[in-house]
């Protein structure tokens, strides 16, 4: 039985050519980039070339590109950059963030910051006006995710970045705007204007694990102290070979972004159409099926990443469906919650006011550039068959 991997949002299938290049490079260019000798200089050059490649891909200045160990670290460095502030001001974020943002922000709250968490609308999208309503003179940081990892909802981050920037100018005080771009970078176009922090993870775009990127255009207090690498923002010996591999993956993703996106949209449309036909199957949010122009005048298909689709089959626990599909060779993930562990309750679906039983049944299918339409057709067929059996048990 062939396994079909449909959990790209958890991690992508690595690119073999890139892996081979990393292997070659890590044996040849192994030296510490901080070393003064020839081997060190060679490693440093590799590192700086990689930085330039990433900067070009993001249309950013390379002095603002910092390499980290991954998305979680990039988010933590961004959010904790304000912890030294003497006056603990206001932080505005949302209830649909990934835990690598939710949890550090929870820590800020513990430290005395005034945390405002905005709920999304029923489609999982943040209304920028709700952020404006919470503006105050003591505001220090605004953090909004770019593409939600559970629903694929694209947030109007450029609009938010702009209003934050305008307000910042108006009060004559810097307000940081952080955006978690881990499910967006290399998949949908990114415009870094007015964004202070933008974070990327290598392994979500077929690069190696253990590498991330932080775009940071402000001088900040680092989270860790050490040997001053990465301009002090992320000290520690750089993993030059893997960073090189990541830069190749990012460039490849950005180079092919338009054609991949078009193809993903087609696959996603196919998937939504077919899932909608399955008994008791519902897409979260339903807006993705019925369409319309509710959100900011955009078409439904433009408001969601076509790489991520959340759905549920009424009454069937997500975990059970995931295991049953796994037995049949399809790897998807339990989108939100595990019935036996309340801690993992999905904040995103709660924020969208999705019914609790639906949330317990919610699963996520996430695709990549290599996913084929035939595979999705197989998936839908098997899902229909298996869910019919399960519905007999969970009637």
């Amino acid at each position, binding site marked *: 039985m062939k396994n079909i991997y449909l959990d790209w949002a958890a991690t992508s299938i690595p690119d073999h050519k890139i892996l081979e290049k990393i292997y070659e490079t890590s044996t040849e260019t192994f030296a510490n980039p901080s070393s003064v000798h020839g081997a060190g200089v060679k490693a440093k050059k590799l590192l700086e070339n990689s930085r330039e490649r990433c900067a070009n891909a993001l249309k950013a200045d390379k002095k603002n590109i910092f390499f980290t160990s991954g998305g979680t670290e990039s988010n933590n460095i961004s959010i904790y950059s304000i912890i030294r502030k003497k006056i603990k001001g206001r932080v505005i974020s949302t209830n649909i963030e990934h835990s690598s943002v939710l949890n550090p922000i929870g820590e800020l709250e513990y430290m005395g910051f005034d945390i405002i968490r905005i709920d999304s609308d029923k489609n999982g999208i943040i209304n920028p006006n709700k952020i404006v309503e919470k503006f105050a003179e003591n505001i220090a940081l605004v953090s909004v995710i770019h593409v939600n990892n559970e629903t694929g909802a694209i947030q109007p981050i450029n609009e938010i970045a702009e209003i934050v920037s305008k307000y910042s100018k108006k009060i004559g005080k810097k307000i940081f705007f952080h955006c978690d771009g881990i499910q967006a970078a290399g998949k949908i176009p990114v415009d870094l204007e007015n964004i202070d922090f933008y974070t990327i993870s290598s392994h979500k775009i077929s690069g190696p694990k253990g590498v991330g990127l932080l775009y940071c255009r402000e001088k900040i207090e680092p989270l860790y102290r050490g040997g001053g690498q990465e301009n002090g923002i992320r000290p520690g010996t750089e993993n030059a070979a893997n960073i090189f591999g990541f830069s190749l993956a990012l460039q490849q993703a950005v180079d092919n972004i338009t054609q991949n996106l078009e193809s993903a949209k087609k696959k996603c449309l196919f998937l939504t159409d077919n899932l909608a036909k399955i008994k008791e199957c519902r897409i979260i949010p339903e807006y993705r099926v019925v369409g319309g122009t509710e959100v900011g005048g955009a078409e439904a298909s433009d408001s969601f990443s076509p790489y991520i689709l959340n759905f549920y089959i009424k009454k069937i626990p997500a*975990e*059970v469906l995931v*295991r*049953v599909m*796994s*037995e049949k060779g399809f790897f998807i993930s339990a989108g939100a919650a595990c*019935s*036996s*562990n309340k801690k993992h309750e999905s904040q995103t679906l709660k924020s969208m006011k999705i019914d609790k039983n639906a949330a317990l049944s919610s699963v996520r299918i996430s695709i990549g550039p290599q996913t084929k339409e035939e595979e999705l057709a197989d998936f839908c067929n098997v899902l229909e068959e298996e869910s019919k059996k399960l519905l*007999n*048990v969970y009637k």
Partner: protein
Amino acid sequence: MNIIYLLKTCEINLKGENKSIFEKQLFANIRKQLDGIKVKISGRKGRFFLTPVDDIDEETRKKIEKTLSSAFGLTGYSIARIVEKNIDDISKTVIDVVSRQFANYVVPSGSVAPHGSVAPSGSTAPHSNAAPSDGAASSDSAARDAASVPFPRTNCDSPVAARDAASVPQSFKISSRRSDKSFKYSSYELSCLLGKLVIDNFKTLKVNLKNPDFKINVEIRDKAVVYSQIYKSPGGLPSGIAGKGILLLSGGIDSPVAGYMMAKRGCAIDALHFETYPYTSEQSKEKVIEIAKKIKTYLPKMKLYIIHFTEIQVHIKQNCKQEEITLFSRAAMMRIAHLLAEKTGANSIITGESLSQVASQTAENIRFTGSHTTYPLLRPLIGMDKQEIITKAKEIGTYEISILPYPDCCSVFAPPHPILKPQFEKVTAAFKTIDLDTFIENAFAKIAILKI
């Protein structure tokens, strides 16, 4: 220095003609658990000596002690030292054993160290090499001494914590025995002599023959044997003596305790687990394996059988009243346990049922599930309350694993309101109509043994 282990049995001693069968089983179990460590076991009348044949290192010692502290049939054991049969060597050893009594107590810094206060005065104690002669020795140096001696018996490395660490011993008793009657001193004389020696060397200690804080035993045999502390073993009867029971092992808190309790009564055990993948997760199976590993420390021969129960469970769910799902599932499990008992030559089935604990454990329900086997159903927890069971589960080390949040099949398929007082004839007839025979045969044909 030579050491041997003195083993004590209890209930076995009450046996009559059959006693030797019990003893043989006990020693066979110990040898099996020792897994290749060569030992000689001698003695009689509830007192046995286990002598390692070869010199043993620290690791082997730990293994022997772990074995003895988990061997059903033993009530306790002591670590005894073997010395030459002369008064000088015996005295030296007794002093050493006494000074180690103090090594078991943690002395708060700043207070007077027991060694400091009880240190021999030097001139009167020619054999006091074990205790520091400097009366001002700090508690730190006492602790270091304790750690460097060959018998560091701190609470954490002894199989069973010896005493309450709160009280420093104040009184002692010397108990002597002489099987070699040619020895110069009689038992009484030897006790007096050694008692005086201890009093002279440890000024804070008093003799108390009725209720001493600790006892030093000296036995004059072909060599002299000196021992003090008795470490606890679980008691009961050697496992296997009562034949084998099939334990229904769910992954919850109760069933491992039930297994332990029957093992203590001499049952060898094979465990049987029912999995309902994909309705339950792979982790819930892993959890059962972890629990089985814990039980296996007491029962080295235990096997873990696993039945893929999903088809049976689904068939039951789809063909009976919701309220009967749990009851009928348990009946099906009982049928399978019966088949396994037949196949493996077991003579009983063991469950963790506790009367009225959950809906499926009412007397009416127990009657129905019990009617699906002719083997005796052993339910050692039937009269225990949950807290007692939990305490026992913590004691045998399975509690922490049992409370991991991976549901077993009972919880996944449990109806909201299971039947409490079924009419026996009615449910028996209803059970017949769902026709599980083929499902049970198929599942049993695919029974697997899991490696633990």
